[in-house]
């Protein structure tokens, strides 16, 4: 094991979620959208959690959103994370919410703040979807 090896937990996609992570590798944000009720769905599922329609289509999202809530983690529960870091729930323009990190100083971050997506290639084959102040 090299000292620089990425030690944080990595997503292990299933066939169901692979399109999301593959899009992230291309530096694109794609979400499922229900063709019947119109709701955007995150995380990937085989059917819409709102109406149970199986007609889910992959759509590219704008990558814009707002911070719904956040915390500055000053004591991490996993040793690979360097404190402090900003963990947040971002509400995307499309309505879906996702857990993510905000690349900003703790002092900058506010609830309701507009943010835009960026893609963090943490390993050669895994890219995380993160946000920074818009």
């Amino acid at each position, binding site marked *: 094991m090299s000292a620089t090896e990425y030690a944080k937990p990595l997503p*292990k996609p*299933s066939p169901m*979620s692979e399109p999301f992570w593959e899009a992230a590798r291309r530096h694109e944000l794609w979400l499922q959208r229900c063709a019947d009720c119109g709701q955007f769905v995150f*995380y990937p599922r085989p059917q819409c959690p709102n109406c149970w329609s199986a007609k889910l289509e992959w759509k590219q999202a704008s990558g814009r959103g707002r911070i719904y*809530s*956040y*915390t500055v983690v000053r004591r991490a529960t*996993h040793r690979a*994370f360097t404190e402090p870091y900003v963990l947040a729930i971002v509400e995307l323009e499309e309505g879906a919410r996702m857990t993510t990190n905000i690349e900003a100083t703790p002092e900058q971050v506010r*609830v309701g703040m507009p943010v835009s997506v960026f893609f963090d290639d943490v390993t050669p084959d895994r890219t995380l979807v993160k946000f920074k102040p818009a």
Partner: protein
Amino acid sequence: MSLKGKAAAIGIGELKPFKTPGREIALELMARVAAEAVADAGLEKGDIDGFFTCVPFSDPGWLYPASAAEFLGLHPRMLNIVDTGGAAPAGMFWRAAAAIDAGLCNAVLCVIADLNREPEHRLSPFSVQREFEAPYGNIGPNCSYAMIAQRHMFEYGTRPEHLAKIAVDQRTNALKNPLALFNDRPLTIEDVLSSRLIVDPLHLYDIVSPCAGGAAFVVASRDIARRAKHPPVWLLGAGEHCHHSSITYAPSITSSPVQAAAQTAFGQAGVTHQEIDFVSLYDCYTITVLVSIEDAGFCKKGQGGPFVMEHSLTYEGDFPCNTHGGQLSFGQPGLAGGMSHVTEAIRQLMGRGGERQVKDAALGFVNCNGGVMSEQTSLILERKS
């Protein structure tokens, strides 16, 4: 179907929580509190014909109820785990009453014990949290409760000192509880606010301290309850609700399923909030109590901050809350954490609160919370005069 008056709690057993390197096993602790609760109920081991438990974090095994029943030498006619996290103790209470009402059994032992030792990987490798939250450092509940507090402050103007007041009043209660882990000195709002920030806006004293321990209670049929050693504590109403597992996908993170759970419990019991003599609200964090007070309907939504400042949450106060100290001062023995909210409500209603007895306590409201405000179970318990 109503469970009103169909069953009663008649005995409790509880360990003083302790810090341990974890060489004990949870079953050893379970055996001690199980025996204590059954003796307290005035029953024999052979009288127990129903059995509910939880798979401890420290001993994640399969087919756990049978292993535990065998260890205890029980031969139940109904056995199961109630897998709703911290909500399980309240969940066990009404499930026991339902099983009794259905004629499946007569005396149900509800018991949980756990250690402050967690296996390395509690999240299943295939879970949604593992895939979409852990990579960003949302591991364990701290961050999620912090985000609830942050959003609550944004929406309603709640302040850190409001949260601190909850920890302070509960500590006052713990000073009168010999079983509490932290009962040696009082706490001030300044103490809480000057303790280390762990996850903004939550300080060290806004957060429970992991420890080992366990507790048990016995729920029995009307016939058995009438012959019990202590005054039976009757189930008047119960409600349960869930609308998310991770708060990221909750419709709102500041309004919880406590609303629906409490509404169902109050409806079934047919009592009003004004009639409640004390509350016992799951408190893994101070914000949990604040949101539960609002969502259970004891004040207007968003007014939890001013409410806790205007009322005293101590056992002698006008809104006695977590008279045992809450988990914040009593300790959180792993998955057994929620038990103390049920055992304390039973103790108060039996009139066995000792120095912290709430005067003339006849009606108690209990809410137990699992996950991140995820599973919610409310109970209304009564001592008949």
